[in-house]
């Protein structure tokens, strides 16, 4: 216990330990630059044997609903959440709830402070919250295959019932690290009731992260900057209008071998999430890409000066960097029994975003 506490204390309690008595030096706040020098260990998080489920069920005295929404006539629409669940793969739309692990001991979910200098954010301290990281092909598992074996892909999370070698004896790891997840909604609009369900089986989020830092440049006025990377892989994502008692009905869109790698914001174009201080509306911005020598780019190429060459090299790297691009791949798309084959959106680069929410009453 003591070793663990000794190791965790620096992260949890480092600024709570006050030096007592002997020093009277005045405390000064740490700047971003000071913080960026900190190279502290992170905190690893693993959920072991995890199950979550809750849903609206009046017969069993359970309520789970979302209100405050209106239809186009301004009438209230109530959304009953019939079930929200996270459980082991093979749950059969959340009816068989068994424990699943989220994260691995040698590759956990992690909360960490990064040195911005090492990720292109000079002088910044960056808070990163991440899932398990992707690994080398030799060590990883195929991200979609529910029977994946070691050496078949780059995902660290293993499917349920993975067989592993215990000193020559094969053993089965039942939990796996790929949960089934589902959200089953019942929309009540006046006398009309309809269902909308989202179910994903054996879901993998490896390689996802969110990075947050403060942008103190004059133009951005202390905004919180963010970089999101959401990886989501599932052998089957199903969106249906089935009733809760018949989740496997034919009224559905089934996306088999669904892969999404969504990149929102990057080092040069962070995403700013904020609220307008005049209208109270949510704002989301990603600034257009630029460079200090952009004026030395003429007709899409360098004007021949050193500054122009620097700018051209920057933009070439920007447009070729796969990490800044988003991909959505659907291996097989089936709409209510009609097969439409595979669909792909690959290499999508989000260049500019300026979204402002507003209250319709304004």
């Amino acid at each position: 216990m003591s070793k663990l506490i000794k190791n965790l204390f620096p992260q949890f309690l480092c600024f709570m330990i006050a030096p007592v008595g002997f020093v009277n030096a005045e405390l000064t706040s740490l700047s971003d630059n000071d913080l960026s020098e900190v190279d502290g260990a992170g905190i690893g998080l693993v959920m072991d044997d995890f199950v979550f489920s809750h849903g609206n069920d009046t017969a069993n005295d359970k309520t789970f609903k979302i209100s405050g929404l209106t239809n186009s006539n301004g009438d209230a629409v109530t959304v009953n959440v019939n079930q929200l669940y996270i459980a082991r793969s093979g749950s059969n739309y959340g009816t068989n709830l068994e424990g699943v692990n989220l994260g691995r001991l040698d590759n956990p979910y992690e909360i960490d402070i990064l040195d911005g200098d090492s990720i292109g954010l000079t002088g910044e301290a960056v808070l990163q919250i991440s899932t398990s990281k992707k690994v080398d092909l030799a060590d990883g598992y195929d991200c979609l295959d529910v029977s994946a074996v070691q050496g078949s892909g780059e995902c660290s999370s293993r499917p349920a019932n993975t067989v592993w070698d215990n000193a020559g004896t094969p053993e089965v790891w039942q939990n796996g690290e790929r949960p089934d997840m589902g959200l089953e909604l019942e929309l009540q609009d006046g006398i009309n009731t309809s269902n909308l369900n989202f179910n994903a089986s054996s879901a993998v989020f490896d390689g996802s992260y969110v990075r947050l830092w403060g942008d103190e440049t004059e133009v951005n006025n202390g905004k919180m900057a963010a970089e999101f990377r959401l990886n989501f892989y599932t052998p089957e994502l199903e969106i249906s209008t089935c009733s809760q008692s018949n989740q496997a009905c034919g009224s559905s869109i089934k996306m088999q071998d669904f892969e999404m790698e969504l990149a929102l914001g990057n080092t040069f174009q962070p995403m700013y999430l904020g609220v307008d201080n005049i209208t109270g509306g949510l704002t989301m911005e990603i600034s257009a890409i630029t460079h200090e020598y952009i004026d030395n780019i003429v007709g899409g190429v360098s004007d021949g000066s050193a500054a122009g060459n620097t700018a051209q090299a920057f933009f070439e790297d920007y447009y070729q960097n796969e990490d800044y691009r988003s991909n959505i791949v659907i291996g097989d798309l089936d709409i209510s029994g009609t097969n439409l084959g595979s669909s792909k959106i690959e290499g999508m680069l989000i260049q500019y975003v300026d979204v402002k929410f507003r209250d319709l009453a304004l």
Partner: protein
Amino acid sequence: MKIQFQLAIALLFITSFSSAEMSKINDQELSEVTGQSGVYLTGEISINEEGGTLDDGYFGDCADANLVCGARLGFQTQENGGWFVLDNIKGSISFEGLTFQTREITSGFGGDGALFNQTVLEIGMPENIRMNDFQFTLATACSDRPTENCAGPGPGPGGVVDSKFKQVDFMTVEMSGEMTLEGNLLVFPTP
């Protein structure tokens, strides 16, 4: 905010008859302390079930349908910007069997345990967790307090908007009844 917290912890007070001087425990001595049996918590957290202490025309008693009686949390992501808000938080959460203890992991986890071979902090999810009329509203607002004005008048949809307080409510989530929440959260330092 009214918080009732009943902890089922056996608190052991040791009174000492000796008058020996206290001395620091060094790292070596600390490393020899073995894990204890942990803590088992049972409790109920109640937030503004009847209303809060404010009565200012926006907040007030829950019996008055025109007033917001729940608690309000706001946070800002830009200096002098608007606010993200969790508004009208009220209801209660009761739980039994939330545990805190250390756990030495040397096996299991599909072969990862033997390689890991460390001690972790284990937070055990409660055996029973129940919400009673728990609700909150997700919103954004131009200022932190509903009694304060916005930064306007200024540009808005359809022209210039006034400086009156504005809040955009996205949704209200209401939860009641027994919830299924099982498992253990393992916390440990990473290199």
